C-alpha cells in the first residue's frame, strides 16, 4: 500500500525501465535466494533511510538472505525462548549482539556495501547473510526470478550474489520504459565475501 502510494506520487516513474532477471545454476535449474542488484554508473543515489528485520525464530535466522541498501538499520528480534549471540566478522559490518533476548533497543546500521555473514556464537547451525548493496535497485530471486523496476534511464551494472555461486556482472543501458530481461547462469563463485 505504501509502495502504491509512492508510485502515485512519483508519476514520472511510470516511464521508468524494468529489468527482469532469471537466475539459473549450471544445470539450468532456477536458483532462489540470490540477490540481484543494479548499480547505476556515475551517479550517487540518495541513502534510503529504511529499516529491515533479521528475525530469529526456531534457532534460525529469518530470512536466510536479506538484501538491504547501504544505510539500512536492521533490527535482530529474538523470537526464541533461548538467548542468541549474533555476530559478524565480515568487513562490511563487524558487530556482535552478545547474549540477548527480545529485540535489542538499537538496530544495527549497515552503512557499508558488502556481504555480511551472520552467525550465532552459541548455535553453530544458525547462518544468514545480509547483502548490503549501494543501490536502491535490488531484489531476491524467488523460483529463479527477480524483477528490478522503476529504474531510471541510464547505464547500470547488474550483479548477482549468491552464497555459494557467482556470475560476472553485466552492464546494461536502459532507456525510459525499457523492459529488459537478463539471465544469469551461475557457476562456482569465489565464496569469500
Amino acid at each position, binding site marked *: 500500500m505504501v509502495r502504491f502510494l509512492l508510485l502515485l506520487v512519483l508519476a514520472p516513474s511510470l516511464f521508468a525501465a524494468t529489468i527482469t532477471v532469471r537466475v539459473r545454476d549450471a544445470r539450468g535449474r532456477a536458483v532462489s535466494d540470490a540477490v540481484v542488484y543494479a548499480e547505476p554508473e556515475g551517479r550517487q543515489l540518495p541513502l534510503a533511510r529504511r529499516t529491515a528485520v533479521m528475525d530469529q525464530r526456531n534457532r534460525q535466522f529469518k530470512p536466510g538472505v536479506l538484501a538491504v541498501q547501504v544505510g539500512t538499520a536492521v533490527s535482530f528480534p529474538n523470537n526464541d525462548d533461548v538467548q542468541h549471540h549474533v555476530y559478524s566478522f*565480515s568487513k562490511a559490518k563487524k558487530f556482535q549482539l552478545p547474549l540477548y533476548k527480545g529485540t535489542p533497543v538499537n538496530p544495527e546500521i549497515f552503512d557499508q556495501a558488502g556481504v555480511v*555473514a551472520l552467525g*550465532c556464537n552459541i548455535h553453530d547451525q544458525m547462518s544468514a547473510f545480509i547483502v548490503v548493496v549501494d543501490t536502491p535497485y535490488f531484489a531476491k530471486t524467488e523460483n529463479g526470478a527477480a524483477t528490478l523496476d522503476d529504474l531510471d534511464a541510464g547505464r547500470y551494472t547488474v550483479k548477482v550474489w549468491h552464497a555459494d555461486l557467482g556470475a560476472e556482472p553485466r552492464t546494461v543501458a536502459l532507456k525510459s520504459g525499457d523492459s529488459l530481461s537478463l539471465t544469469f547462469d551461475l557457476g562456482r563463485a569465489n565464496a569469500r565475501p
Partner: protein
Amino acid sequence: MPARSFQARLLYLLVAVLVALEAGTLIAVYVAGRRALERTVREELSTGARVFDHLLQMRARALSEQSRVLVGDYAFREAVATTDIDTVTSTLQNHGERVDANVVVLIDLDGTVLTDSIPKRMSGRQFPFPAMFRNAVERSGSDAATVTFNGRPYQFVIVPVLAPRPIAYVAVGFEIDRRVLADVGRVSALEASIGPRTPPADPDFTTFRHTLPTADGSKIEVLLRRSLVDARKPFAAMQLQIFILSAIVLGTAVLAAVLFARTVSHPLRVLAEGAGRIERGEYVEPIVVKREDELGHLATAFNSMQSAIAAREDQIMFQATHDALTGLPNRTLFLDRLTQGIAAAKRTGRVAGMVMMDVDRFKEINDTLGHHFGDQLLIEIGRRLTQTFPGGTVARLGGDEFAILFSDAKDVAGRVTAALNEPFVLGDVPIDVNASLGIASYPEHADDAGTLLRRADVAMYDAKKNQSGVAVYEPGRDEHSVRRLSLMMDLRQAIARDELELYFQPKVDVRTEAVLHAEALVRWNHAVHGVMRPDEFIPLAEQTGRIGLITKWVIRKAIAQCAAWRADGLDLTIAVNLSALDLFDAELPTLISGLLSEANLPADRLLLEITESAIMKDAAYAQKVLRDLKRRGMCLAIDDFGTGYSSLAHLKRLPVDELKIDKSFVLHLRERASDDYVIVRSTIELGHNMGLVVIAEGVETAESWSILKELGCDMAQGYFMSAPLPAGKFREWVRSRLR
C-alpha cells in the same frame, strides 16, 4: 638295607614311575606352554597393531574434537577473521598450546598457508598435505590423517574456521610421540617404537612391523615388540607351580612308598630272620609280626612250622639214634656210647667191651609165626636184656642183632644166656630162644669202637658157626671176616655183572654107564679171588639173604640149558641144589613151574636136591613145600644124606625120589669092612627098600666105583667120571662117551 632288597626295588619302581609321570607332565606343560606363548605373543602383536591403529583413530577423533573446540572459540575466530597476521600467528600459538598441538597452521580457502605457529614458516606456501585439505573442503568439515611432517610421524587434523561459513581452515599437527607409544604399552603388553629410535634386535623380544596408513604416501612403520620374558612370566609361574606340585606329589608318593615298603619289608625281614633261625636250628624264639594281614598269617604259619620242625627234629633225632621197634638205641647211638665207653676206659684203665648177639633161627620164627610175632619177640628180648643190664647200653643193631655195652666183663655171656633162658610166651605159644654171642673188648681186642664192633661180629659168627653159643674174638680172625665182608658186598653185584657161571657134572647110571642126570653147580668168576666154588660163597649168600637170587638164577639158567640140550638131542634130567632158605620162599614153586612151562620142558626133567639138614630144620614145613613141588611134577632128592640125623619116620613121609649119599662116606670107600662101606651099603638098602633111587657122589676112584656097582647103587657122580664142566665141554664129554 641291601640295594636289591624288596623295599628298595619297590621304592625304585615307584619313584621311577612317578618321575616318568611327572617328567611327562612337565614336558607336556612346557611344550604346551611354549606353543601357547608363541601363539599368544603373535596374537598380542597383531592385536597390538590393530590397537595401535585404533588408538590413532581415537586420538585423531579426540584431536579433531579438541581442534573443533579450539577453532570454535569466539576469540580465535574473531582474531582469525579480523585481526592482523601477527596477532593471528600468536593466537595460533596460544590456542595450539591449549590443545598440546605441535603445530597449528591457518590455511585460506584456496589451500594457501596464511600463517602458522612455528612462526609463519610456511606462510604463502601451499599446505603440504593437499589431499587432506581437499578432503576437508569438499566435506565442508574436517579430516584427520597420519603423515610425515618435518621427518617425524604426525597426526594432522584439519578443521574449518566457521563464521559461520568456513572462512579459513586450521590444520593442527600432533606428533606421534613417546606418550602415544606409551599409551600402546598401557593398553597392551607391547612396546611400540617409531623411527630411528628402533631398539636393537633382542632375542628376548618378538617384534612386529606395522605400517601405518598415511595420507601423504610416506611410509611410517611402527615396531611393536613383546617381551618374551614378561610373556613367559605367567607360564613360568604356572610351570613353577606345577613343578612344585609335582615335587610335593613325588615327595608324598616316595614317603608313602617308603612307609608302605617298610610295612611290607619290615615283617618280611622279621620273617626272613626267623627263617634263618629255623635254618640254624634255633627253634625257641618265635617270630613276632603283630599284624592281621597275610604277613601276620605267614608269621603264624612260620611259628607253627618252627615248632613242628622242632618236634619232628626231636623225633628224627630219636629215630636216628633209636630203633623204632624196640625203642632201644640203634647202631649209631651204640657206636657213640661204645666210643665214649672206650674213652672212659682209656682214662680209668678199665675195660670196655661189647657183646654182639644174634638170635638163632629168628628168620624161621619170623617166617613161620609171622612178622608180628617176630617183632613181639624182639621187643621182649630187648626188654629182658635191658632188665639184665640196668644202666648199661643195650642196642638193637638191626634185624635180630643186639649189642650190649659192658664195662665189667664178668659173666657177661652167662647173664645174657640166663636172660634168654626162660621160654618166651607170646600169645599161647611158648618158644625157646637161643642166641649166638660174640664178645670183644678194649683194650684186648681193639682200640676203637668200629673195630671192636666188627670183631665182636666176627666172634659172633664164629659162635654161630661152631654152634657154641658164645665166642670171644680170636686175633687173626679179622682177615677172614674182612674178605667175607667184601665178598658179601661183591655178591650183591655178581649177578648183575654176569660173574656167575653154571658148571655141569654128570650122574651116570652105574649099570649101563649111561648119563642120566647133570647136576648144575654154580661158579663165581670173581674179579679178584678167581673162580670160587659154591661151598665158598653159598653159605655167605645164605647168611646175607642173597641165596634166593642165586637159586633163581641157577634154576633159570639150568632149565634153559636143559631145554637147549633137549632140542639138541641130549635128553637129560637137570639137577639143581635148593638151599634151606629156599624152602621158605613161598613163591619159588610157582616160579619154577612157570620157567618150566616157558621152556616147554617136562617137570620131571628138573631134579631139586635139598640137603637133609635143610629138611630137618623144619621138617613139617619142608614136607609141605616138598609136597607142593612134587605135585607140580618135579623130581626131588635128599642131598648129603647121612649127615642130618633124619629119622626114618620123617624120611618115610617125604615125597622124594632119590637119596644122595653124602660124599664124605664115598670119598674113602675102599675097604669092604670099613664103616663107610657099612653105611653106604645100608643106605643103599634103605633107599631101595623105600623105593628110592640111590645115588653116590664123590666117586673119585675106580675102586669106589666098583664097590658101588657091587652094592647095587643106582647112579654115581664124581671126578672118576668127570669133574663139573662148562655147558659146552659137558656136551662134548657126553658126545665122546657115546662114541
